[in-house]
């Protein structure tokens, strides 16, 4: 059972179809599966619904799929970084379903965990509650949210062994672990590919069972959206 594929195109072969639902890891441009996104763009697959906290920026991340107009709908919590998004949305070419960030994360986690629905206080009494079941528990109001199960998940990891066990680095973890669980077809790109046994099993974040295919991206390009720094003080 070989999980490692030679490149992103090969790893996605047979997994893409028009109109599908894709979970894409990352927060902003941090920890996004950029190589897999590029291969999805190159495939030409259309009418995608993409679950991702953000929609990339112009020219990077999911922004690539906006440019090529392959996205029909985004399920996100914040899309403020992307001018093209605003244009396509205002032109009626793009749908958006806003989810509170924690609700989005939990819906994905629930989908992967076989939980079809859960209750949360988040959004009770707001627009987000419209059309959703509300219920009181112990005197507080909650709304029911549904789990998300996707046709395909694409994630980015810092290191992975050939069994599909993954570890993430710093805040590049973000949405990747849940998204890895939320579909029956999860493809992971890893910056460092190692043999089984090379990662301490107590440190593994995503167990290999969740990863169907993987590629090695040793030279992954990483973007910084907001470069905030201190001046060095020369003593």
């Amino acid at each position: 059972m070989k999980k490692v594929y030679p490149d992103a195109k090969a790893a996605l072969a047979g997994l893409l179809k028009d109109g599908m639902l894709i979970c894409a890891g990352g927060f902003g441009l941090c920890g996004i599966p950029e190589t897999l996104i590029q291969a999805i763009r190159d495939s030409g697959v259309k009418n995608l619904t993409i679950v991702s906290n953000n929609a990339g920026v112009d020219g990077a991340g999911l922004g690539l799929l906006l440019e090529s107009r392959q996205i029909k709908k985004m399920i996100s919590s914040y899309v403020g970084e992307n001018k093209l998004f605003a244009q396509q949305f205002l032109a009626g070419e793009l749908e958006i379903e806003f989810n509170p960030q924690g609700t989005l994360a939990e819906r994905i986690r629930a989908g992967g965990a076989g939980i079809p629905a859960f209750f949360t206080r988040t959004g009770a009494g707001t627009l987000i509650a419209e059309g959703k079941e509300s219920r009181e528990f112990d005197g507080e109001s909650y709304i029911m949210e549904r789990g998300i199960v996707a046709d395909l998940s694409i994630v980015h990891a810092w290191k992975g062994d050939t069994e599909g066990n993954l570890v993430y680095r710093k805040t590049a973890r973000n949405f990747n672990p849940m998204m890895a669980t939320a579909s029956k077809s999860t493809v992971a790109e890893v910056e460092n590919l190692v043999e089984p046994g090379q990662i301490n099993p107590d440190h593994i974040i995503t167990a290999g069972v969740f990863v169907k295919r993987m590629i090695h991206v040793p030279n992954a390009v990483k973007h910084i959206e907001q470069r905030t720094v201190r001046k060095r003080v020369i003593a």
Partner: protein
Amino acid sequence: MPWTREQMADRAAQELRDGFYVNLGIGIPTLVSNYIPNGMSVQLQSENGMLGFGPFPYEGDEDPDLINAGKQTVTEIPTTSYFSSADSFAMIRGGHIDIALLGAMQVAENGDLANWMIPGKMVKGMGGAMDLVAGVKKVVVIMEHSAKNEAKLLKRCTLPLTGAGVVDMVITDLGVFTIDRKGGGGMTLVEVDPDTSLDEIKSKTEANYRVALKNR
């Protein structure tokens, strides 16, 4: 003179306690980290999956894998831990974060908060704000008292809500209000900028509120 942004941040920092876990929103709340009293240890949470972070990195030390919820590069400190977004919001929703400081467009006297959308304008999204105000133990809003002569402290919010009955305290450039959002005791003005009259505050505030100034 009304309080400056720095003075508002300084006042907000007085709501912190030793050992607190704190989530700071963007804007003035970010400045609060500069006013944490000496000897007090607080851990800053970033909802993208980090607890315990330090200042911006030195030039050249930026790490694309190390950002805060505003997508800004930050630094690790000895107490830092990383976790997934699901675990991060489990922490927030489960009431494990002691205090959230955030900005607002409108706050109502019952604690309703609006800070994420203006109908008719392009909506960017609520990000983690709805989860924070619903889950964090104490929610403190830091904002200008009014905008373009329009009151922001209202009887009822006119903008779509971020959370219903969620705000515990509002710090503006003119004063400090507490809101008894759970007990239904309404809004109370508890501190005033020394250069601002009670009449001026009244004229700039649509919300009903009692006045019970604390000696400071």
